[in-house]
């Protein structure tokens, strides 16, 4: 997990510089106030209880006041220009650029689609490094917010609107983030994983992701595939290469190759998966997936099928 001080993108570097200037200026102001408060408190403390003499009744000083207005005004001016320039540099208008990825926020997971391909992923977003990437966001329901701290700027994703943010990722790696706008019951579990690849790796990943789902080979998984097709799973979930084309829930085409499930709630393994299918509300109360009353065998079959979708 990064912080705003880890700068994974070129944009975040710019922000980091601005943050630093601000921290310096703010520290100077704060130390001045702390210093003056402490000094005056000690120096002018009333000590002698018998002394009732009144101090000098000074009540204003125009010159001092002007300085006290002038200094903050100048600082404000300086930071306005820094802010203005930084925004212009890191958030240029999108124009008609084609985004590298389109993000759609859902209660409570992220959908990512990659323009020019059929590829969709959920919660784990893959991006290449070294390119000036446009990330576009919208929402399918309520307002969410897209933020990966080490990338810098966040972006509210709002139903009916398309927002954007830029990122030029520097190094391959996994970068974590989370939804930042309160979006209901499971706002806590709407975490983001961005997997950044070298351009060559990214092309490889994209080509693999564009493949339809692997055909199940063993009997158990094949049984699972049949249940999936019959049991209404397919009305919400898509598995490319099969008849399942639902768009309500996450795309499961390559579910088995994901590291986490349920937007960062749990590692993706067969026992978590089985628990989820047994009772979604027990793992993630409020999640919009119905509970199906499956026999243990059915759950085993479904689990084998989904885990095999690499």
């Amino acid at each position: 997990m990064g912080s705003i001080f880890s700068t994974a993108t070129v944009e975040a570097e710019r922000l980091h510089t601005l943050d630093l200037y601000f921290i310096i200026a703010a520290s100077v102001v704060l130390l001045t106030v702390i210093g003056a408060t402490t000094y005056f408190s000690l120096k002018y403390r009333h000590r002698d209880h018998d002394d009732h003499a009144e101090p000098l009744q000074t009540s204003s000083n125009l010159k001092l006041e002007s300085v006290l207005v002038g200094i903050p005004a100048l600082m404000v001016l300086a930071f306005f220009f820094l802010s203005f320039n930084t925004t212009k540099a890191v958030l240029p208008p999108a124009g008609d650029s084609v985004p590298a990825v389109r993000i759609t926020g859902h209660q409570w997971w992220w959908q990512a689609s990659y323009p020019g391909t059929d590829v969709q992923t959920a919660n784990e977003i893959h991006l290449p490094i070294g390119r000036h990437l446009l990330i576009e966001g919208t929402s399918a329901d309520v307002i969410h917010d897209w933020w990966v701290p080490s990338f810098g700027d966040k972006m509210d994703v709002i139903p009916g609107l398309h927002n954007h943010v830029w990122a030029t990722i520097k190094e391959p790696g996994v970068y974590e983030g989370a939804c930042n706008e309160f979006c209901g019951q499971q706002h806590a579990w709407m975490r983001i994983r961005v997997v950044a690849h070298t351009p060559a790796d990214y092309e490889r990943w994209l080509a693999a992701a564009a493949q339809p789902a692997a055909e199940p080979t063993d009997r158990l998984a094949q049984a699972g595939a049949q249940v999936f097709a019959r049991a209404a799973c397919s009305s919400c979930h898509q598995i490319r290469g099969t008849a399942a084309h639902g768009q309500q829930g996450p795309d499961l085409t390559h579910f088995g190759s994901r590291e986490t499930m349920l937007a960062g709630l749990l590692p993706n393994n067969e026992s978590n998966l089985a628990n989820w299918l047994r009772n979604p509300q027990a793992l993630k109360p409020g999640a919009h997936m119905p509970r199906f009353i499956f026999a243990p065998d059915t759950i085993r079959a479904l689990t084998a099928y989904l885990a095999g979708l690499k």
Partner: protein
Amino acid sequence: MPEPVEALPGLSLDTDQGLLQWISSVDHKQLGIMYLWTALAFMLVGGAEILLIRIQLAVPRNTFLGPEMYNELFTMHGTTMIFFVAMPAIFGFATYLVPLMIGANDMAFPRLNALSLWLTIFGGLLMYFSFLAGGAPNAGWFNYAPLNGYNYSSQPGIDYYCAGLLLGGIGTVSASINLIVTILRYRTAGMALHNMPVFVWMMLVTACLVIAAFPSLNAALAMLLLDRRLHAHFFEVHDGGSALLWQHLFWLFGHPEVYIVILPSFGILSEVFSVYSRKPVFGYVFIVGSGIAIGLLAFGVWVHHMFAVGLGNTANNFFAASSMLIGVPTGVKVFNWLATMRGGSIRFTTSMMFATSFLVEFTIGGLSGIAFAIVPIDLQLTDTYFVVAHLHYVLIGGTLFGLLAGLFYWFPKMSGRMLNERLSNWFFWLFVVGFNVTFMIQHVLGTLGMPRRVYTYPDLPGWGTLNLLSSIGGFLMGAAMLLLVYIIVQALRSGPRAGADPWDAYTLEWTTTSPPPLQNFDRVIPVASVRPFRDFKMPHDADHKEVGKRKGIYGK
């Protein structure tokens, strides 16, 4: 209607005055005290809510509350603290003090005054009734659309939110109209506008802000009720509404609101700094002027709550400029209070201790506020725990410290009793330490990327430890609040008598008995400067006589 006999009971716990007399009272002092009790009661409720929340957050992946209860509690905590603690506390001080400070015998409209109080109380009770009616509001105190709509929150909580806040809002607006008329029409002879105590000035600005800002909230609440109950389409995108309309309406109210709750404290602090430093407040004209400037600017900055919604760089930069600008008059005030201390003879009563520490805590909150006015910094930190830290440094380190300074300053006037100074000092230290432990840490959590309003969080490095510390700080503050209640009750029972003027103060309210009689004043002393009582006590050194000698002294 039973009328109070001779002297008023003040804050007394004695029952000889009878409950009915309190309930039916139209006396501004009794109403003011009831406002303060209301604020204290809701403070204990809102505090209990947040302690449950801090238990839930003490360790990662905790299951103590569960998401649903958690969301209701944090929504109720925020809404309660803003609307049913801060607002009644402010209006309590104002209702009690404004007539006394301007030498009047009551507010302009005593019956309206009572109505305002009861509307506020019933608004709060109505909102809390939602717990029994099928679920409390759960979409946060700012209750964003479309999450606040029937499609996403079908429980009745949000309807109670609307109804409760509408009631309270009507009470607040009527109380403000009452204050404005009282201040403009009922000042004693000689009290020109430039002789008004800073607190009265700040309440005048605050009341104007209320009547300009609350209609926006009240309209939004009515629209939301229409959406939810009659399927109007104001805020629901899929029916052709706008999700951002709510935010514009809400923050057009909400931003002035944050000044509504801070300006009265600025007023209180100006009195406190002056009296305990034994000097006139430094730069009266600048302090009052910057208060008015803040009041005007407050309506031009609401979009800084919306930098991340994508209004574009032009709009964002405009509102960044106006927001940063507000830092200037605010900074002016801090330096003016420091200048008031300078060269003074400072008595560190508990009240003055809160005032002094306010300077530091509020500066921290103010600086992080400027950080949010800088668009790129806001885009990093908004809606993280850094915001939680910021707003509590402003609301607690600013507003509440000011209100507590006021409480310790005026309690003897209201009750006729002195508070136990030693215990009060304990309260101060416990509260200040607890406060900083709780919230300083949250700045760090925010920069680490912890979103606000999450009922739990993953076990990332440092997150558990920092949250645990923050929870411990919260419990220190809780203990401090209980101590405060004890201190108040103990003083009411058996505190030493205060006398009319225990602090050797400057303004008119101290010229009458403590607590004041039903008819506030037998005779109001002449007013010719901001410190009439001091002029009265020290005629040879009166402010208004010294115009030539003392450089820049105000007065006639």
